[in-house]
């Protein structure tokens, strides 16, 4: 028996070395994590402290309750959420069918589509806004007595400024294109659609029941990016004179230091919660395990003949 046991020294040595090697990256990970945490959480915690610890009053949530009651809070928040939802919907309705169609029927147009979708990247928000406002000015000047005038008014309705939605869709286009394109590239789209049609699915059903479920990750990412973009957008909205959440924060912040910081903290939390909600909504839809990570416990080992 003893002969079968390897000498203690030789076996233990490499094991300890391996353990050491495994420990070092973990240590570094910890250090990097700590630095990052300090960098991000430090200011956040300081802000939080600043807002709840008022000199002379001690701990109070006064600045936060003040926000909820402040004029314009709810309306600007609602406007932003509506804009975000509409932007996500319009961007996807526009891009998803277009990208799928291009890939399946006219692959040569892909370059054109890519260039078109990337164009907004090279136009600064300020320039875009300047362009939009000068076009909007044509309304009263040139179209005052035409039916088009009504359209100009509708587009600028402060209750739901369609013009802002259009601008946001434009701005989201490059991000959305890139994430969707990456998702599509990972699929053998032609074969998938042909297999679906061979199984008796019409074109729309093939797209809805085979392509879209396999694009879920890309759709979710597109939603994330678009949501984050709309929540944080200030330039266009402010220049055009609308008051979504970001603009409201800036306007309220100027009047009260404590309130301005608490509003920033609140908006951070809000963004975070919305992204989490979106992620949960996407994940909850199906119980599919993430790619290549775990095997369903119910599945038995592969049959012998397949193992070769």
């Amino acid at each position: 028996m003893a002969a079968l046991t390897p000498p203690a020294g030789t076996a233990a040595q490499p094991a300890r070395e391996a353990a050491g090697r495994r420990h070092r990256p973990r240590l570094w990970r910890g250090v990097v994590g700590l630095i990052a945490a300090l960098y991000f959480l430090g200011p956040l915690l300081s802000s939080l402290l600043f807002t709840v610890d008022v000199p002379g009053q001690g701990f109070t949530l006064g600045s936060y309750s003040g926000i909820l009651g402040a004029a314009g809070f709810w309306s600007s928040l609602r406007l932003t959420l509506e804009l975000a939802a509409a932007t996500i919907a319009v961007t996807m309705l526009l891009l998803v069918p277009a990208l799928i169609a291009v890939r399946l029927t006219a692959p040569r147009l892909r370059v054109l589509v890519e260039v078109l979708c990337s164009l907004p990247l090279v136009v600064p928000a300020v320039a875009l806004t300047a362009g939009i406002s000068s076009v909007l000015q044509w309304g009263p000047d040139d179209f005052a007595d035409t039916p088009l005038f009504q359209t100009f008014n509708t587009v600028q309705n402060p209750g739901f400024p369609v013009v802002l939605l259009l601008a946001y869709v434009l701005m989201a286009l490059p991000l959305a294109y890139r994430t969707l394109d990456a998702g599509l590239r990972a699929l053998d789209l032609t074969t998938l659609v042909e297999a679906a049609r061979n199984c008796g699915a019409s074109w729309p059903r093939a797209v809805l029941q085979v392509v879209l479920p396999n694009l879920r990750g890309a759709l979710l990412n597109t939603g994330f990016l678009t949501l984050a973009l709309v929540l944080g957008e200030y330039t266009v909205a402010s220049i055009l004179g609308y008051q979504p959440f970001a603009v409201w924060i800036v306007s309220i912040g100027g009047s009260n230091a404590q309130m301005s910081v608490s509003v920033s903290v609140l908006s951070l939390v809000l963004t975070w919660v919305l992204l989490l909600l979106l992620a949960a909504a996407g994940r909850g839809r199906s119980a599919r395990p993430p790619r290549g990570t775990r095997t369903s416990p119910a599945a038995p080992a592969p049959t012998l003949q397949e193992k070769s």
Partner: protein
Amino acid sequence: MTATTAEASASARGAGGATVEFHRLYRRFGATVALDGLDLTARPGELLALLGPSGCGKTTALRMLAGFEHQDAGDVLVDGEDITRVPAHRRGAGMVFQSYSLFPHLTAAGNVAFGMRMRGAGKSERHRRAGELLDLVGLAGLADRYPHQMSGGQQQRVALARALALEPRVLLLDEPLSALDAKVRLTLREEIRRLQQELGITTLFVTHDQEEALSMADRVAVLRAGRLEQVAAPAELYARPATSFVAEFVGTMSRIPAVRTGNGAQVEVMGARLPVQGELPSYGELDALVRPEAVRVALDPRGGATVVAASFLGAITRVTVRLPDGTEVKADLPTETAAVLPPGSAVTLTLPERPVLVDHRVV
């Protein structure tokens, strides 16, 4: 076989046995002519292999039948009915693709049940049928696996079950085994053949592997540059190839210079006068086409031919012999016989007194 598989095969059999006709099919992609007047008929219930070199139009023909490709001219008929205007999702042709084509977001059972879902079958019905079909292709335990959790062979089995679930009139297999390793390929080849015979579904099987075609098919259609070269049972194709292309594509052939003699119905090959099989070209220089198993080799110190190489194939050994004029001829010999003919031996070759196939000499 279990009771459920018998049931599954019985219900699939009801749909089988259609006649498929390609009639003067023509298709161009830019300057490439993919199909150049293809005429071919698959009989009810047979397994017809489409064999040919890469790019000869096999996939294109199959995709036309499935409705993924349109023809520039010609007709595709199923049971005498022109299906050109029927959209792909109503063709009733089950296809197994060359590349892995399972739906990644569905389990094996979900993939098999997809077609039934499209037809509006109830959940319990789908579940039961999917189970039966997975059983039929030998994957009873893997119903809950996702495609990325299965091997290539398992995925193609699921794809086969998915195609069978459609109760197709025609089964289309486009090189379903080409991505698999040799051993799995052999097993699956036999299983496909067994299933196809049990279900009696007319099956078109595309391959560029002649061994696969000869071993599985009822008949083999050899395609060349978008045309049908010959369609025949495997043994017939091997023994009596209609053209030199078929002869050389199916099995191994050696070319030996031949000269016209007699009244034009004979040729002289290596000093022997042999009748000609098929037509004798009326002009130009000729080669005789000879199978390795037809060539006899004898040790002969005064024979002008020399053994130059030998490759061991198990029971037989294939030796390459160089004639005085430099022509190389392959001959299959029992391995014990070949053992006394090491490379360098001087030998003579003889051909049996049987008609030989001749062709224009290629330089």
